[in-house]
């Protein structure tokens, strides 16, 4: 509960600070000012688009790999208590997952597709 209060307090203060930033400089913005920065150029379309993410396969691998953290945190707490058994089990777990990374590497997913 105190954790939650502290976090909420920090968020309220930070967002309040940003609201104060918004309050300043109220001059209205004109259309020529609004143009996106292109060094003088004028774009044909909106920049928001179906953006081609070049590393999308990597993100899928990452999401699966990152799940391992969920198991690793509790493991770290009991590691010394459980000793070599813990080392062996986590070693096995990480080895299994590393195979996935090696496969991804071989498929070239860490490049810009």
């Amino acid at each position: 509960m105190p954790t939650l209060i502290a976090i909420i307090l920090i968020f309220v203060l930070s967002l309040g600070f940003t609201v104060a930033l918004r309050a300043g400089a109220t001059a209205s913005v004109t259309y020529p000012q609004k143009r996106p920065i292109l060094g003088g150029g004028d774009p044909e379309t909106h920049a928001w688009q179906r953006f081609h993410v070049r590393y999308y396969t990597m993100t899928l691998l990452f999401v699966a790999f990152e799940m391992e953290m969920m198991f690793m945190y509790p493991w770290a707490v009991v590691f010394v208590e459980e000793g070599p058994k813990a080392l062996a089990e986590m070693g096995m777990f990480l080895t299994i997952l590393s195979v996935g990374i090696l496969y991804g590497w071989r498929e070239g997913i860490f490049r810009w597709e």
Partner: protein
Amino acid sequence: MGMNWLAHLAARAEVPVFLAEGEAAPAEYAHLLARMPALRMVDTPRAAAILLVVGTVPKALLPQLHRLHDQLPHPRATILWQSRNDLSGAKRIDSAEDIGTAIKTLHSDLLAGNVESEPDILPDAPPNEWRGVGPHGQGGKGMMGGTPYGRPMAMTAADLRDGLELDTYTADFGPFLPMFPPGLVLKLTLQGDVIQTVAVTHPPFETTEDRGWVLLDLLGLPALAQRKLRGDATGKGSFDRLARLTAARAAIPDGLGRTHDGSDVRARFDHLMSRRDSALNLHLHHTGLDDLLVGLEWHEAMLVLNSFDTASLRTICGNTPEPETDDDADGEDDKKEGGMDHGAHAGHM
């Protein structure tokens, strides 16, 4: 009262200046400006208070200059340095000695309200006519149609690298982007951050400025770039040691931007860092910008662009196809329409 106090503090800051380089700029102007402690060159007009036009911007690029001018936040002012351009309200300076103090004074005056902030040059109207439909007045016809908020939406095209048909973004980039050689305007089509097509709208100006520091800047070493720009005052030995420490050479991918004679960005980087006066003899007869840039992502493309000296880059631009002229512009409309139909079909809209 409160505002005065803020303006008073603000006037003591380094003046944020955005540089717009034109033709026949004063020699070594970048070095000169770098040695002025009261100025700070910024990357984007959004951060600048003063627009400094150096040299003369040719007529063909005046619309771009006007657009750039209007992008600065108020209060703003323009200084024309050895320039034959004409901007209403802008101050002219010709001698190199005065430029530092002139900018500083103008900035203080702006903040104190002694000088009016310059108004927009362009009319206050959206880039395209639009009248929103939809429940909140936004948007146009259908999902992808119309010109919501004054611009159409991007259209799909097949990608070069992996063939996914996602949206493309086409625009003229430059001539006043800090990472572009001055004067260069490229019509780029991007998909994500990868360049799909290149056409030269305007070649770079002829200068003999050494742009080695830009390459350092692009490699994420602004402090070192500044050291190089400020010149020999700090000693060459220490610069070389620092440059080696940063592994800047290793950060450039091997073989990036290779021309037909086999020189790549790394080789040209070495040459720029070594400060030899002789130009690197490049054979660029059949190399166009499309050969060099198409398929590269943005950062790599910028490294390639800035690794050439201006003369070589002008040759390369000469080998590059021109952007479509009016005839083709019709064709382009067709393309848009076609894309729209296609998109609509694919998305069941």
